């Protein structure tokens, strides 16, 4: 966008800062940069995922629970396809071989197994969000 004497550049908001603010830089004629924060709806990186039940607001006791962690870097998906039901939900019983989610990396959909026997008590990542190695994905109460 350009106006008389000013130039405005739109930038993507940073993913991991948790903010949904897109920064704008206004460069004045004198060449000074002033920042004007502008509230905008945050942009999703992946194709818009269908609504999935969010993690319940109730406090989950961390006692006697173990985490399923991401074994790779990529994008976290709760279901095998955009219109399919999620692999697991809160209360689901899993064993070592149960597929709990997909992490997409370089266009390959990798099925992630629970590798633990128990009950899902919390989903820790929102559908469609990027995850790093070792990031906790689910909390499980071991059987």
């Amino acid at each position: 966008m350009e106006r008389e004497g000013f130039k405005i550049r739109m930038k993507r908001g940073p993913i991991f800062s948790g903010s949904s603010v897109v920064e704008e830089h206004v460069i004045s004629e004198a060449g000074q940069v002033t920042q004007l924060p502008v509230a905008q709806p945050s942009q999703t990186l992946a194709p818009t995922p269908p609504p999935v039940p969010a993690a319940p607001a109730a406090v989950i006791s961390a006692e006697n629970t173990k985490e399923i962690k991401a074994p790779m870097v990529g994008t976290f998906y709760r279901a095998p396809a955009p219109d399919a039901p999620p692999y697991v939900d809160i209360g689901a019983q899993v064993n070592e071989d149960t597929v709990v989610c997909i992490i997409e990396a370089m266009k390959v959909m990798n099925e992630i197994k629970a590798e633990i026997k128990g009950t899902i008590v919390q989903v820790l990542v929102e559908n469609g969000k990027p995850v790093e190695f070792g990031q906790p994905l689910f909390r499980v109460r071991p059987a």
Partner: protein
Amino acid sequence: MFEKILIANRGEIAVRIIRACKELNIKTVAVYSEADVNSMHVQLADEAICIGPGPSTESYLKIERIISAAEITDVDAIHPGYGFLSENPHFADVCESCNIRFIGPSSRAMNALENKAVSRALAKKVGVPTPPGSEGIVETQEEALMTAKRIGYPVLIKAVAGGGGRGMRVAHNDISLMKGYVAARTEAEKSFGNSGVYIEKFIENSHHIEFQILGDNRGNIIHLGERDCSIQRRNQKVIEETPSPLIEYKFKDLRKKMGKAAIRLAEAAHYTNAGTVEFLVDEKGNFYFLEVNKRIQVEHPITEEVTGIDLVQQQILIAMGEPLRISQGNVQFRGHAIECRINAEDPFDDFRPCPSRIEMYYPPGGRGIRLDSHIYSGYSVPPYYDSMIGKLIAYGKDRREAIDRMSRALGEFILTGIKTTIPFEQAIMQDPNFRRGVYSTNFIDQLLGGARREMIEDLA
């Protein structure tokens, strides 16, 4: 202009690259292993992605995780630093096929200089002198013996896929050659995944002198002068300086000759981005091509100080498709720069690596002092990676001033809780032969033999 770059490295070079990006107003993404969660490059980058546990093979060398990290943060380019994946043509290809620019030479150039034997053959083809040696890979012990007979002992058995000073053995006679040949092939297979070896004449009292080159994507290549890296311990560089005292005091015309040879070879390989052409120079001023390092190098800061050119920024600009805005005639050399690699090693215990927690850290400062490092008070040096914790660079209007400044800086550098090579480097700064600029690649061996050891302990 790139908007965002991922740095596929760690430690001091990751900090260096992040600094270059910040000055160019480019956003940065750091990748890190679980062992590096408290590392400075993670703190300085705009975003950071964990890519695996401590060991490099599980993290910094995991191509798919690095590319994944690049995709989810939507970067324009990846800077590979040095070591790790920086000279891996497969990695460069994967980046390009994922529409991510690789900041370094094209895979075509990397393949033209794919290993030491191939590079040697290319050098010969374009009339760049190489050490007398085998035509290519030596397949049998008999061939090794015949080569040695032709060129004369002592000889060096070198792994074709070796690099960074590794994979070389000297043989002084037929018996040591036969034994060494077999051992070298086994070691090469284990260390580099390629058992190929070739043979070169071992040049005694040699000087390791390398030339920095920069090439854009349109075929323009320039050199930015030499770096003398003869001060090595077990083929690992300890101290580097520019200009080379050998060239400056004895063979002044070598700079032009060797610079031209370096460019000729780079052109033959269609080289792009930053690289270094390594040579050995003997006491008579004959120079011989060794290999090309197809990446930014550890010791690049000394070239930056005497030329005023930011090499990492140049790498980024070239990768963006910018033509080189510096011509060979515009390159100016001013003053003298020396670098000391500061390693977490105990010089009094055979340089045993000492990864530990740094208690107190007071870095040197003042005029003409630059410190490229990622460490801080309270930082625990992880055991998984090489022991270099920083590079201390001193610049002066001449060699004498640079040495005096380096000596002052080493003296005020405080690091407790950890053993470092600082006292060792201080001893070198005080050494009369070093100060006269008279040294070759056997300098440290001589320094560490016998009577000189007291000098090091005194200065500790």
